[in-house]
């Protein structure tokens, strides 16, 4: 029976010229958004590659340079885009594109896209996610509402019941048929995206796309189910529609804004000045790599002299300056770790609180998994930053080791390493975060979406038992 209802509902959707026209228009819009998203991603990728090659070429062109001079010369890392970013841009528009990698300091990303122009869109670019997160649910609300109100107003509902249809079959059949409509649109997005990037598909992208697909499907069922619930329970159809529209506004416009601001108030981050001052303070307790008269430097010098069993640094077979620089780096790294870890801790707590808010707003859970599965949330951004910092430490250590063991003596600041050495220093290679390493972070969001799924099933069961028509 339920299958028959779904079939009838789809027959209606196809026969209705207005809905068919709107659907075709919507599919066209979705395809355009995917094409534009992909075009933008490819252009961005080309820019990224050009900038990366430019910086690397400059590095390779170093003829001769003191290794510590090279540590100050440093390099730059650009944030690459991912294939899935064209579905959901997430935080990429506000986090910056460039990070300077140099000695003595762990820099932050700067020059975000948002800071390079005036405000255009509060809800982001015309990416598939903009349509799938905001517009498709609204379309589903109208369709689901229409599916019930038409039956009620025309009296067909009574006839169906008199013919022996179970209320639960009618209710669930309608909810599923409209959900399937949403899933159809979702399928268009996923298939078009896959076809456009067929050569780059791998198991990781397929898994992420599948989870993206499942999460949206659950959300669409929740939206359709709730609309059917209101439309079937309430006699006043206008009130039913406006109630669901109010829920949509509350979930997508109000609550994300308010809750995100609130979690930031509940778990505040320090100001940049506080953060920098605290790091500077801690940093001042360690060795100053550029100051040989520093007391800690002198103690370290004694330690090394004993280790090499010599009396003066001039007798050392190595360059002590390089060792001191690396010791300075090692201490600095501990300081950065301590302070950046604190920041990450606060951000993780904020994220956890926000995830819990999914209990009252499944849209937030959807938002989290949508960004997460398309590698564009804060977690993936931090993983990128962590990779850059790991690279920075390796990069500086290679330079300091060259200064120390490359053949120069202490105090020979004019000693220069060869061009071959600089060419041998590896470039930064970003490894996209594996889903398996971060999946547990999204379990709560997925769990809450499933909770909403069951809650909707429960509401629909209740509605089918207490339909006012009876």
């Amino acid at each position, binding site marked *: 029976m339920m299958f028959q209802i779904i079939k009838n509902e789809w027959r209606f959707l196809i026969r209705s010229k207005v809905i068919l026209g709107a659907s075709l228009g919507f599919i066209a819009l979705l395809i355009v958004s995917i094409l534009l998203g992909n075009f933008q991603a490819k252009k961005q990728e080309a820019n990224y590659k050009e900038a990366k090659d*430019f910086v690397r070429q400059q590095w390779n062109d170093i003829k001769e340079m003191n290794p510590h001079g090279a540590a100050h010369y440093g390099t730059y890392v650009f944030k690459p885009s991912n294939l899935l970013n064209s579905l959901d841009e997430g935080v990429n528009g*506000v986090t910056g594109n460039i990070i300077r990698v140099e000695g003595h300091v762990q820099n932050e990303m*700067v020059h975000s896209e948002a*800071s390079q122009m005036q405000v255009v869109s509060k809800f982001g670019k015309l990416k598939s996610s903009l349509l799938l997160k905001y517009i498709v649910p609204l379309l589903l609300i109208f369709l689901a509402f229409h599916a019930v109100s038409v039956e009620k107003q025309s009296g067909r509902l009574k006839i169906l019941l008199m013919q022996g249809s179970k209320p639960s079959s009618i209710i669930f059949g309608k909810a599923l048929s409209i959900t399937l409509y949403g899933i159809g649109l979702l399928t268009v997005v996923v298939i078009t995206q896959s076809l456009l990037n067929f050569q780059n598909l791998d198991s990781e992208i397929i898994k992420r796309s599948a989870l993206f697909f499942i999460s949206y499907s659950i959300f669409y069922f929740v939206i359709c189910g709730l609309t059917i619930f209101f439309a079937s329970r309430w006699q006043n159809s206008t009130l039913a529609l*406006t109630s669901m529209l109010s829920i949509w506004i509350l979930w997508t416009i109000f609550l994300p804004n*308010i809750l995100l601001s609130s979690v*930031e108030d509940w778990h505040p981050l320090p100001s940049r000045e506080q953060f920098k001052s605290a790091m500077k303070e801690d940093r001042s307790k360690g060795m100053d790599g550029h100051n040989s008269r520093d007391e800690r430097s002198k103690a370290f010098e004694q330690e090394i002299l004993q280790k090499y069993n010599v009396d003066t640094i001039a007798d050392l077979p190595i360059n002590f300056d390089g060792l001191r620089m690396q010791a300075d780096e090692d201490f600095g790294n501990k300081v950065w770790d301590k302070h950046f870890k604190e920041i990450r801790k606060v951000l993780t707590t904020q994220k956890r609180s926000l995830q819990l808010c999914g209990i009252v707003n499944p849209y937030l859970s959807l938002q989290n998994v949508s960004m997460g599965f398309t590698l564009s949330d804060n977690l993936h951004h931090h993983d990128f930053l962590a990779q850059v910092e790991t690279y920075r430490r390796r990069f500086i250590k290679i330079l300091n080791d060259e200064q120390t063991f490359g053949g120069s003596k202490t105090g020979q600041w004019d000693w220069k390493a060869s061009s071959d050495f600089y060419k041998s220093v590896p470039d930064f290679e970003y490894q996209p975060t594996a889903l398996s390493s971060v999946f547990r972070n999204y379990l709560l969001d997925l769990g809450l979406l499933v909770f909403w799924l069951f809650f909707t099933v429960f509401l629909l069961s209740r509605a089918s038992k207490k339909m006012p028509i009876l």
Partner: protein
Amino acid sequence: MKLLVLFLYEWKHFVRNPFKIVAVVLLAFVGFYGMSNGLSLYERQTAEINKIETKVEKGQAEMLSYYERGEKNLKDKPWVDLTQAHQAFRNTTVYQFKKPSPALVYSIGQAEQYGFYKRVELSSSPYDEDMAAELANPERLQVGTLDFAFVVLYLLPLLLLILLYNIKGAEAEGGSLKLIEVQANSSFGWLVARVSFYAFIVWMVLLGLIFCGALLTPVFAEASSAFLKMIFFTTAYMAFWVLIYFLIIRRGQSIIENTLLMVGFWLLFTFIVPGVVHQWVSISKPTTMMTEMIDAKREKKDKLWEEEPAVLQEQLNNLFPAITKSSIAQKEERKRIQAQKRSIVALANELMKSATQPIEKQNKDRNELIDFSFWFNPVSFFQNQLNRLSNTHYDDYQNYRQDIQQLIDKQIELMVLDTWNEVSVDKKRYQEYFYQ
């Protein structure tokens, strides 16, 4: 029917509809919440600036005390000679601030995407890494803060929709429309009166909120024009939506049809059009990777140190013609080279300025493209107008960058000329550097 009578009827209709009343109250509440977010940011930024200013003043007073005592060298850095101009500048902390406007209470705009204080040194640039914005959750930044501008731009049309959606449609569906058309002299006038009634109520609520906002921060004392502009733009924006909804209602015959069309227009203007424009701008003017600046910062700046003294001298003479007549210019080569080395920072500054020009040009082109979209993208237009009145528009931060650059230029000029003229920095000169 007279306008007053229609207004009274509509008032009765309004007060008997709890849904509409709740919607108006909710907007007022959210509007106030939005302003409290603006106030909070205003207070945080002001407090942070005050804290840094106090620290800077303390540092400068400490430096001044060396000159008062006649001590030439710093205690912890005995090799530093404070009577030399370049050392006076290098050892004094100077900041350039972008002080928040009291009108931040209305629109947070792009305030959270940029830094609002910057330590300015001789080798600084307005595009330095420390120009980064305050630490914030990127996911929150991406969604944005719910400020009063958000309420006006996105929620006000929704409130109007809730208040107007059933006008005429309910009468048409109930079959009483013909009767009303007979009773009222003009159905157009009847519709205008009913729509105007709700527009008036919403306008009064908005005016009340704008006035309340002005009391939260010193808007009247420091940004009275922002208050008037806020009223003007809010009114104009409201009129824009009222007109659209009025036209929909006028031609529509059912509640659902009208509601769908109203929601459709709202989605079109708030989501689709800005989203399309944003995507279009990103494709035609992609984000700059700042390679010109990187090149200047590393390669070109480094090469300055390898330049021949004669080349450096020529460049410095072009930049500061006054140094050709300076005391050092007449002295032996060793002194001239030393002064040149100290003045390299000025040439590096010029390099950075030229390197940032193409970046600024790209940003300008990007913004012109957005400006071009305003005739069909009204929400972005009004958003940017509200940002301008609270000094949180892109251009305001561009001006802030220019202020930073001017301060750098001024400091460099003072340092270079005093270095070449062998000015011995004393208390008076130090005060001229930093206290004027």
